């Protein structure tokens, strides 16, 4: 049975279909990575338009609250096994937008991240390196963020709800806020 698993992991690691969902500015280095100069297809990674067919979710940088919501939908639509790559500083600890009111601070509070890549933004070489690293992890059966998500679903859900389903103002300011519907 374990040989069978090894074999599936071997093939999985060689045919990553990544969701071409460009969330932040890290998306700018993906076209060079995808096309002829760096050509990630050599490593079996190709862009895929729909979440249901994808294996890797690239979070290419910062996530605004609005796109975090959509990202979570997208992640939950994907079939296991699935992996999340966090690109650049913004996903690790907020990056240059650390004090922004609309950008989340740490991605790992809301989704399980399998690999963080340093850089702002990471160069194509760093991206390719991370794909290779992910392949090694998958072959060894170590990258199991999706299992972690299922196991700790309540924890992730609570964090997601905290930022996405607010019912009262975050800063309790006495002033009346006038807004029309």
């Amino acid at each position, binding site marked *: 049975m374990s040989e069978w698993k090894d074999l599936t992991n071997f093939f999985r690691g060689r045919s990553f279909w990544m969701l071409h969902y460009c969330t932040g500015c890290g998306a700018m280095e993906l076209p060079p990575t995808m096309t*002829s*100069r760096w050509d990630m297809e050599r490593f079996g990674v190709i862009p895929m338009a729909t979440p249901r067919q994808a294996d890797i979710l690239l979070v290419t940088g910062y996530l605004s609250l609005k796109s975090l919501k959509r990202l979570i939908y997208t992640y939950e639509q994907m079939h296991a096994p699935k992996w999340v790559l966090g690109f650049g500083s913004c996903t690790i600890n907020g990056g240059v937008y*650390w004090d922004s009111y609309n950008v989340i601070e*740490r991605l790992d509070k809301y989704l399980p991240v399998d690999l*963080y*890549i340093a850089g702002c933004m990471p160069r194509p*070489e760093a991206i390719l390196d991370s794909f290779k*690293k992910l392949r090694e992890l998958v072959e060894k059966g170590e990258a199991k963020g999706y299992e*972690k998500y299922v196991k*700790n679903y309540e924890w992730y859900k609570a964090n997601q709800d905290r930022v996405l389903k607010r019912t009262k103002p975050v800063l309790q300011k006495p002033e009346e806020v006038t807004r029309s519907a």
Partner: protein
Amino acid sequence: MDTKKNALAPLSALKYLFKKPHTVRYPKEDLDVFEKEGVSPRYRGFHTNDHSKCIGCGNCASVCPASAITMVEADDVKPANKFAKTYRPVIDYGRCCFCGQCVDVCPTGSLQMSREYIHSFHPDVSIPPEEEPEKVKEDFIWRPDQTYANNPGYVRTPDDLLGKTIEFERTDPREEPADKRKFSFAKFVHTYSKEEAKKEATRCLGCGACVEACPNQLHIPEYIRSIAEEDPEDSLKWIYKRNPLPLVCGEVCTHQCEEACVVGIQGEPLAIRWLKAYSASNVENYLEVVEEKMEKPNGKKLAAIGAGPASLSFGYYTKLLGYDVTIYEAEDKPGGAMMWGIPKYRLPKEDLMKDINTILSLGIKLKTNTKIGKDMPFDKLLKDYDAVFIGTGNSKPMTLRIPGEELPGVMQGLTFMHLVNEEKAPDLKGKRLIVIGGGNVAMDVARSSIRLGAEVTVIYRRRIADMPADPEEIKEAREEGVEFVEAGVPLKIYGEKSVEALEYAIASLVPDPNGGRPRPVVDENSPHKKVKVDYVVAAIGQHPNLDFLPEDIQEKIGFDGRRVPVDDFGRTSVEGLFFGGDLSNKRQDIISAIGAGLRAAKGVDMYLASRK
């Protein structure tokens, strides 16, 4: 451009089938673009930091737009110089945006960027999600060191200083040329103009290295910032918080702060002293601007002996606290060493009086021509007042202890300066004068004598570089024509009625094994020299004179003839007796004395509050 439809045109792309692809092989293969292998020679990758150069000033942390840098105290590094701190930048690569601004503002050039950029981290599945930040932190926050130093990228080279953000060149105030100023006692360094002051003030990085170097910890970054905002009044407000003699310090301070200034490591330090002088001389009435709140009089009486900087500062701050202060001065004018020791070309007397009068105008009583011990017994003071502060400074000059010292024409430095300041100095025109010593007093004597028309030689027992005087003073004295003799040890003064000649030996300098100043040694092989001379002024240091104190008190406070041991607040083992200024300070300059006065003011307040 021809945009005619042509179904065959796209097929021309087929020729690329047989061309060599320009795909980069697996990561980090040479791009074949740049001179050096790999990425751009100016690439902004992970940082490197040379810990032997880093001074821990924290400018990188303050400039970081992503707040990625924290300064952390490191116990495994040595401070790079005597003012340096052992804080080192720790960089969070979960924040860093690789903009390179930290490299631009690093005053030492120790923080640089390498061409390394690949780093990734995989959190193990067994780590619970709530503990993951801890693991990620361990991996993405590190203290840069020399690991990547062999692959430098974006660095600041010494020959490319202009391209970066720090301005390394100082704006000097206008100065009279040496050949003009040596005939006049007028102040030769002009105060900054508004533009000059602003230009100089905008060089400040605001790191506060100067604050720790200042013996009195003035709010230096704050007052410089106010000058940059073209607000000398706000600037003075900041100065007055810890220094009631702004113009004096602006003109004659020993400016430790400038030695510590981080801009000075690769360039010229900020002219902090001149900036202070600028803000003080641009305010007519200090008290209107400062708006210090004075407490209600609390009925307690304090006495201060000696109207020098320590007592004036003590008087000012205790007066603000509501005490009734009386200052006793033996001379006819207040100011002490500032009045009698410092020549007019450095500190015009009207500038000094502007500061002193401001302090006295608060309602501090000044009793001049009252020498304690002679005109008034000390015991009476102790009895009449709640506390007594003694800031009489060093008034007993050290003697040469060589034959011929008692001859007329041999003078002590301070006595000579007193005469000069009283304008009662002997006529020196065309006379030869030798100054013995290498401190600031020696320089004052030498330069004053030059102005009085003498030919001046300074004899010092070590090298010029070892002189305790300010390097600037030495430089300016040389410009004005003062001769220097290194390693000269005076042996004998010849003369019948008055001084005629001086004999000195050239000592050999034995280096100090601990790295201190070398020791001059005179033996029988040392060459002897004899020069003709009309006056000899010995400026080799002074000692405190506490003769007016009863002997039992002298013993009780532990006075050893040189210094009175006191605690942080000027307290001694005798209750109600406080000391400050050169009497008790390690550094003997005006700003330390002011600091001592301020601390003693606090000490008195604490003492009287506890006695209640």
